[in-house]
């Protein structure tokens, strides 16, 4: 029997965990302005979250519910099944983060694995000007906001709760909850996302 796991990651910390296929990961902001930077690496320890592929396949410049997080090799890593927020930043990366790098190192990874990340709970707005200028949105996430991912294959997740790189505010704690539901139905998905899920289920999940 798999037990649920809950953990509070304090602000300015980093954490990592293996997550088996089918489990769900729920992050909860424990203060206004929280940020949870996440890297994901797939079951084979090479196939990483690929933000450009995730965005262009689903015609989005943000992460929101109803998106599949795709890997370098076109497989589904996780599905965003629910969130109280419809915009999680994935365009502005993270500052060099020694604690996050240490978490990678614990699992045998390192600097070459610093692929693009998601900054859950953060929003950086895009202006309709010639260069698509960016502005950090200060009043986006609030205490209690959540996002839930369903692992679509065995994963390693890496989490940093450092403040967003463009935020002046303090870092905030984020709660993590891992659960093992019998079945988590697919949210409404684009056909590209459905193809990624089907291939993943055919090949490895």
């Amino acid at each position, binding site marked *: 029997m798999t037990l649920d796991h809950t953990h509070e990651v304090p602000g300015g910390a980093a954490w990592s965990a293996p997550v088996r296929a089918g489990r769900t990961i729920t992050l909860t902001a424990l203060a206004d302005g929280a940020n949870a930077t996440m890297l994901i690496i797939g079951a084979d320890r090479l196939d990483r979250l690929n933000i450009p592929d995730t965005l262009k396949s689903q015609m989005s410049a943000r992460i929101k519910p109803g998106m599949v997080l795709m890997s370098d090799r*076109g497989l589904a890593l996780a599905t965003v099944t629910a969130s109280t927020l419809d915009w999680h930043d994935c365009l502005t990366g993270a500052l060099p983060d020694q604690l996050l790098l240490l978490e990678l190192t614990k699992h045998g990874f390192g600097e070459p694995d610093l692929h693009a990340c998601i900054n859950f709970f953060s929003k950086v707005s895009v202006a309709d000007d010639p260069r698509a200028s960016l*502005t950090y949105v200060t009043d986006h996430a609030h205490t209690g906001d959540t996002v839930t991912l369903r692992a679509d294959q065995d994963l390693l997740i890496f989490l940093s709760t450092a403040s967003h790189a463009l935020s002046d505010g303090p870092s905030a704690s984020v709660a993590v909850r891992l659960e093992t539901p019998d079945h988590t139905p697919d949210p409404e998905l684009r056909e590209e996302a459905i*193809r990624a899920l089907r291939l993943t289920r055919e090949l490895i999940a």
Partner: protein
Amino acid sequence: MTITSTTSTTVALDTVVEAGDGALVTVPSGGRLQIVDLHGNQAVDTLFYDAHDIDNRYSAFDTIREQRAVFLTTGSRLVSTRLDELAVITDDTCGRHDTVGGACSQESNVIRYGEFTRHQHACRQTFLRYGAKAGIGQRQLTHNVNFFMNVPVTSSGGLTFEDGLSAPGKYVEITASRDLFVLISNCPQVNNPCNGWDPTPIQLLGRW
């Protein structure tokens, strides 16, 4: 910046990269590399690595954050995951370039367009083939610049691939801030408008 020889006009490199082919170019610190879109609307997928430490490599999203804007153009500093400046765009007759859209791969083509694209040629095949001699393998591949490619990102959070803004003879010039490996895939994609549905050759002109 450590640019030392921007006044040099010696043409050290002058080559045409055919449609769908690639190149690995070593550009010394201060060297200027011009990429010329010979026939217009041709995406040129490009990666940058510190030639003495390939783990110090281009970071698309750190570059975007540091300049507080999505599109690249003259003045854009191309930074690494360590936030070192690898290169600067010092001239640009096209106007803007993408670094959000990444490179096509056989696997992402299948997801986007369907199983019939599985064995079409793709940029990440080219990256792996030309990167090998510099030690650049799958782990070292990262999210690239797409010179001449038009990927509008909107205030509502949308993203699309559109017809290019480029035209025959438009060029971009990159000046190296340190010794660099520049890994290029002249994109073979035929399933979206990024190459005007018709991949064409580009010219590389290096002065150092």
